[in-house]
Each structure stands twice: as C-alpha cells, then as structure tokens.
C-alpha cells in the first residue's frame, strides 16, 4: 500500500501541491491523470523520494519514504522519470544491469543476469541489447529505461509518462506488459499518463488531479464519466461505447 498523509509541496507563491491524502492499495495499475501542471509528476516524484515534500508523510509498503535508508527503499520501490539527459554510452544490457545494483552492489551473479535477460525480453528488446543507448531512437531508449526499473524487481513501480516517445504499437505493448506485471507478479504500479483512454482501458484505478489536489480517485470505470472528465480537464468530454469498453471523446 502507498499511503500519503497531508503531503504538501510549493514552488514560489503560486504553485502549491496538496495537502494530499491518498491510499493506493496493493496490486494493480493506478493511473495518475489530470491537466498539465496539476502536480501529477511532482506527486510521483515525491513518492519515489526524488523530491522532498514540504510537509506530510509518505509510506510505501510499510516503509516511510524519507525515514527508510535510500538503499533499502531501492529494493521496495523504483521510479523512472520521463527525462533522462545523458551522454553515457552504455549498451542496453549494461544499463539494465545497473537496475540490479540495489541487490548486488555491482557484481552480477547468474541469477541477476537472468533478471536482466527477462526484463529486456519483457520490453521486446532482445535484438537490441548490445546496442549503445545513443544509437537508439527515443522510444527504444525509453523502453530500455523501463527494463532497467523492471530488473530492479521491486514490488512498487512508479513510472512518469512511460508512454512518452512510444508509437502506438509500443504504447499498447507497454501498457499490456505493465498490466501483466501487476496481475501476474502482484506488482503495484503507479503511472502518469496523458491519454485518458489508455488510463481508462488498462488501469485498474484512476486518480485524477487538478490544481495540486486529488479530485477523484476510484476504480477506472467510476472515474471515466462525462461529468468527471469534463470537470477535471476543463474541456467538454463525451463518453461513447467502444468495441472494448468506454471511450472518452474530446474532439
């Protein structure tokens, strides 16, 4: 369970996030949605201890974020941010191997290599594993980073816009994979997504944010309604019945 209590963060005088109280139960995929600047990424970043909240407490799987040593936390939760500026020339396999660092401190044992291989296959990059990151497309690089946090083998997985840079096929694949990781391996996955229909279809729960606060949180079906989405996004949204469930139409 991820538990946030009175979490606040402010930048300057204008942007304020929180106070946020939230309890994300174990298992399943939870999608954080909302307009730009709603504070989704900031909230996720705080959960992943990359940013310190001004006030409040965050607990992941019983471990207090901010009170648990970072090393220990790295075996419980992994977080991937959307931007990764780097010039580092590592191969995909080397990068994914560093996802094992919390468990190995550097030396990969055969079972670690297996974790790495599985993570690479999971994101469909077997054929590219010995390529250097700077020779890959943005989407391939994105998948390599996702493989890295998968190899970290944590129960909780926080992903900031994992569909960024991905084409249609890989977006669908990524969501299917994440859902499978949640369903079959019992992982708890929290993602920030922009495409509301991806959230509606693949997520078990949706948490809608606006102006730094949580305005709606519940099973995906309950949040995917005309009124709620229109209110959250300040844009007229219609719901239609698609071949595989409800779809939000906003154009």
């Amino acid at each position: 369970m991820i538990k946030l209590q009175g979490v606040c963060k402010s930048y300057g005088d204008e942007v304020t996030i929180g106070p946020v109280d939230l309890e994300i139960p174990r298992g399943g995929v939870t999608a954080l949605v909302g307009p730009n600047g709603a504070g989704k990424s900031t909230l996720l970043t705080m959960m992943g201890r990359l940013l310190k909240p001004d006030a409040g407490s965050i607990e992941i799987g019983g471990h207090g974020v901010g009170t648990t040593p970072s090393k220990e936390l790295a075996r419980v939760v992994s977080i991937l941010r959307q931007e990764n500026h780097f010039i580092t020339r590592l191969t995909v396999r080397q990068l994914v191997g560093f996802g094992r660092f919390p468990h190995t401190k550097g030396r990969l044992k055969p079972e670690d290599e297996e974790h790495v291989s599985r993570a690479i296959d999971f994101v469909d990059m077997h054929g590219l594993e010995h390529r250097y990151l700077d020779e890959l497309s943005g989407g391939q690089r994105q998948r390599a980073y996702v493989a890295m946090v998968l190899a970290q083998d944590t129960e909780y997985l926080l992903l900031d816009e994992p569909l960024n840079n991905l084409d249609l096929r890989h977006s669908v694949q990524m969501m299917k994979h994440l859902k499978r990781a949640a369903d079959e391996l019992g992982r708890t996955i929290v993602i920030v997504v922009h495409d509301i229909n991806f959230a509606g279809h693949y997520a078990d729960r949706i948490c809608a944010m606006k102006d730094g606060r949580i305005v709606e949180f519940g099973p995906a079906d309950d949040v995917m309604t005309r009124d709620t989405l229109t209110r959250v996004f300040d844009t007229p949204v219609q719901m239609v019945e698609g071949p595989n469930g409800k779809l939000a139409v906003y154009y």
Partner: protein
Amino acid sequence: MTSQTLPDRETRSRSRQRLLDWKLLVGVAVVVGLLVLSLYTGVYDVVGAEDGGEMFAITRIPRTVAIMLAGAAMAMSGLVMQLLTQNRFVEPTTTGTTEWAGLGLLAVMLLFPGASISMRMLGAVLAAFVGTMVFFLFLRRVSLRSSLIVPIVGIMLGAVVASVSTFIALQTDTLQNLGVWFAGSFTSVMRGQYEFLWVVAVVAAAVFFVADRFTIAGLGEEVSTNVGLNYHRVVLLGTVLIAIATGVVTVVVGNLPFLGLIVPNVVSMVRGDDLRSNLPWVCLLGIAIVTVCDLVSRTIIAPFEVPVSLILGILGAVVFVALILKQRRRG
C-alpha cells in the same frame, strides 16, 4: 515478467563482456614494449658505461614508472570527471583543477619555504579539491550540461587562477620556478622524489572498486537515487580521488594537458562508457600516449629535451578540435 527461464548457455552468452580478453593482453604487450623502449632511450649509455646500471636505477626506472603512473592517473581522472559532469570535454586541465593545484603548490612554497615534498603535495591536493568543487558547484547552476560552454568556462576559470599564480610569482620572484613547473616534464624525475606518485596507484584501485557507482552517477542524480545511491556522496568521493591524483601528478610532473580528454573519448567511442570494464583500457592508453609523447620530447632535439606538455598540447589540441567538429556534425 515471463516465468520461463532461459537456457543456461544463452544466459551466459548474453552476459556483460568479460574484463580480460586477448585484446587487452595485446594492449598490455604493446605498452610494455613502449615502456622498455622508454627505459633504454636517453643520452647516457646505460648498457655500456661502467656506472650504467646505477644510472639506470636512479633516472631511467623512476622516469618510466612516473610516466606510467602519471599517464594512467590523468587519463582516469578525466574519465571520472566526464562521468560525474556528464560532459565529454571536461578533464583536469579544462576545469582549472591543474591550475588550482599549481596555486596550492605555490602557496605552500611561499608560506612554508622549507616545506617537504609531502607538504607541497598536500597543498596541491587541497587546492585541487577546492577548485574542482567550485567548478562542480558552478555546473549545478547551469542547465546546459553537455554544451561546450562548460569546458570554456572551465578553461577561463583555470586561466584566472593561473594568472593569480603568475601575479604572486612575479611579486615574489618565483616566476621562473612557476614556468618550469607549468611545463609538465619527466626530465627531472629521479629516485628519491617521484615515489609519491605511487599514491595514484592506490587511487586507481579505489576508482576500480567503486567504478559502478561512478557509472551510475553518470546516468544522473535521479537514476542514482532510484537504485539507492547517494549521488552527492559519489560526486564528493570522485572529486576527492580526482584531486589526489591531479595534485600529486602536478607536484611531481607538472601540467599534462588534454590527456584526460583524449583518452576517455577514444575509449568511449570504441567501448562505450562502462567504467569498470573500461578502466584497464583507459590506463593503458593513457600510459601509451604519455610514453610516446615523452619519447618524442626526448629525441626530437636530442641531446636536449622539450617538455612533454608541449607535444601533448599539440596532440590534444588537434583531438579537441576534431571532437568538437564531430559533435557538430552529429548535431
């Protein structure tokens, strides 16, 4: 994740590359050949003369060992700096680290005229550390980490520090000492005053030991934190190690420009950036380049010598410009 396990052999063949292979052995052999050549190059006939053996022990061996240690140290420092700053053009002589070390050395020599070599070294190391920290703190405030602005600012910073040194030297009539020091050279290396260089062997071992941490730090603060690394502590550790290596080399040998730039870039182009598996190569190539440059500097106007920094500077400048052009082309 999928539950099927891969066949054993496939897992092994997919593993990371091994550290030792025949290519590395060939590299070692070539470098050893160069070092032997270096041992037997010089004006004095160490083989024929009566006291040849003694001369060999007093000057040739120390010189060759110094070349080895200094070459490896500077190349390694450049690599670690590049990982920590995520900038390809950064190395001790393009960030002012060397100049700071020089200032520290000068300060110790002026404040404590009878200072031992270990005290001078301490001064140089401390100043190098302060200078590198100043540079890193500056870097944190710039958003364009990969840009050329970074080394330009570093070179400017170094020039300012060097001019402070020059001013002090002018005031205290030590300009000539400074000039001799600034021109890195192995000419004066001999038994009894180069032994401190062995410290950098310890530094190299330390870098090898924590190599993975530096590589991860090269992926950025967020990725480091994610895997449970204290990013700032890694940067601090890296800075300490760089300062020690640079400070010691500066005091014993002097300025070895661009070495930390050429070597890591060439190695990275061929082998990528995994520090642990690259480190032997970076050390080897650093040694090889310094040895060749030193051989040239000793033979080009024999029986006299030019400073090795002159040869290195020319070579380094060419590589530096080539790197910039290459990056431009890539866009």
